[in-house]
């Protein structure tokens, strides 16, 4: 799980990184994905859960997850080599 494991995440989507002191806010969908990533779910599984939870197709879910993971990477919240599956 790497860096994600250290993040403090509250139910309203506020995230605090105790190592860098940075804080972030995410929307409900982001929170949904982040919690699944913290539980070490594979991308394929997250896509499935996202399509079940929200009214979107597989392709859209995959695009959103890829975007979201890329954002996490940009903010240094996951390592470069993580979640490339």
């Amino acid at each position, binding site marked *: 799980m790497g860096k994600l494991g250290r993040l*403090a995440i509250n139910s309203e989507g506020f995230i*605090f990184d*105790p*190592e*860098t*002191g*940075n804080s972030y806010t995410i929307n409900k969908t982001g929170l949904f994905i982040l919690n699944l990533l913290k539980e070490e779910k594979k991308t394929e599984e997250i896509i499935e859960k996202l399509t079940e939870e929200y009214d979107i197709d597989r392709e859209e879910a995959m695009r959103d997850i890829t975007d979201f993971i890329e954002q996490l990477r940009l903010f240094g919240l996951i390592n470069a080599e993580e979640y490339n599956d």
Partner: protein
Amino acid sequence: MTNVAISGINAVDNPGPGVGVIKSIKKKDKNTKIIGLAYDAMEPGVYMDWLTDKVFIMPYPSEGETPFINRLLYIKESCGLDAIIPTLDAELPLFIANGEKLGSFGICTFLPTKEQFRLRAKDRLSDLAQSIGLKVPESRTVTSYEELTKAINEMKFPVMIKGVFYKAYKAFNYQEATSYFNKIVSEWGYPVIVQKVVAGEEMNVVGVGDGEGGDFGMVGIKKLWITSLGKIWTGVTVKHEEMLRTAKNFVKEFNWKGAFELECIVSDDGIYLIEINPRFPAWIYFATGVGINLPERLLSAALGKEPERASNYEPGKLYIRFTDDFVTDMEIFQKIVTRGER
């Protein structure tokens, strides 16, 4: 009852650490008698009589050791003095050089040695950093426009333009770099340091070394908001294990004694050491607020007691500075101006 003298009670826009140190000591024991050491009648701490029980105007350290030490002995004689916590850079060499002498008069201090103090000079920082596994940003010492331009061409913008002792500015083009170079030269003289800007998170560690390789606690923070003078206004506690481990290495490697503040930039390719201050920073009350009362621990050590050593603070605690004001009588001002004490 313990009588402690504390300097740096200039709680202004570029605040000294004194008021934070006093608040910390009073938090532990409100009966400790605090003697404020001021260099100007207008220092706010002179008037904050809920924090300073007595205040004395000191001669500048640059006037020489004799008047300075004599003033401290006068203070001891007139109201009793068990320990001193100096907090200003300009005073430290004098206190360090006279630590034993003051001790022989029953005035305790807990300061780095002369050699430790010299170690963290800007021209030796690179060697020190390497010995504890830290990096330092690439830098050049320059004394002319020609050297300045050459250094900038090698490093590319932005660069930091710094004085050897004080001041640091970030320059994004030649005009800015030249203007900051002139500003530093006119105020502080030559040489000027040109330093590469390292991208990363700026973090600081404050702690107290026990002089034998251990520590009496440390706290890591990140500045979230700074003033135009570069002073912290809000901050947050962090637990960056590698940075804290490095701080412990620093204390162990050099048997650091007394207060210190490490200023670092945590980058993807490692931790860069920017500066080591051999004293408490002005935001020291932050550490006290999260349960690590470093000034009180340092005072205990100075008085020969064994202080607590725990560093079990929570990350994610916020530090908020704010402005405040109060009204007082002319009497205090009169006393401090005419008698040099109140």
